[in-house]
């Protein structure tokens, strides 16, 4: 049940045969993080974590093309249901994006839902609630129109 009316920008979900608390902890424990968070051609990950609201993290992913630092701060830590943190990386333009991770228990499994929203700085300056949330979806819509027209 996803009753929250949000507009996703990037949303990925996966059902994993493990308890929510175990998965939740894997996001906040630097030793665990450095083992599993190796997307793509990442050969090694270093993680430093200050797991409290307002606390910062730094996750450095080492790839053949160089080291990619990811930094951010925790905005919400509701064990074992929801984790919200800001996310900065050279790829993201080194300013705000926001990641929400929801852990939904499903029998013996847990559905993990990651929602990653880009926060345009121009919008953030004047943001009121939800003002920016649909922007990326609009891009996608316009992009689709453009392609359809082309």
């Amino acid at each position: 049940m996803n009753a929250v009316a949000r507009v996703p920008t990037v949303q990925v979900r996966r059902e994993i045969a493990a308890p929510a608390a175990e998965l939740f902890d894997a996001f906040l424990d630097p030793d665990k993080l450095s083992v599993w968070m190796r997307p793509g051609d990442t050969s090694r990950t270093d993680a430093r974590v200050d797991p409290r609201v307002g606390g910062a993290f730094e996750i450095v992913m080492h790839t053949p093309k160089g080291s990619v630092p990811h930094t951010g701060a925790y905005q919400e830590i509701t064990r074992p249901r929801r984790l919200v943190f800001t996310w900065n990386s050279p790829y993201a333009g080194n300013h705000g994006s926001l990641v929400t991770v929801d852990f939904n228990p499903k029998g013996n499994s847990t559905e993990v839902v990651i929602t990653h929203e880009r926060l345009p700085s121009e919008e953030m300056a004047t943001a009121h609630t939800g003002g920016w949330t649909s922007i990326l979806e609009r891009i996608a819509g316009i992009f689709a129109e453009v392609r359809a027209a082309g």
Partner: protein
Amino acid sequence: MDRVLGAIADPTRRAILARLAESDARVTELASAFPISLNSVSKHVRKLEAAGLVRRDVRGRDHVLSLNAAPLSEAADWIAHYQRFWEESLAALDEFTTGKKPNRRSRK
């Protein structure tokens, strides 16, 4: 990319882009299609130009505007990058917690 996001955050500018996706247009043609002044339309067009989304081609006295979708694809690239990033991360988290090689299937 911020300029792109700022440029398309406004409904009138999105409508202008949608109009230019159909065909090139003069500023005056655009103005007649929207219930706002020529001056307002010009301001919006300048923002779209600054974001690289609209090109202006001066042909004699006419200024013909055309759409340049390339900056939008940068935004689309961002989406594609992180879609893959998190799918791969969740697959790895699955493998880490369940101790078995998960299949690569992930639902959207």
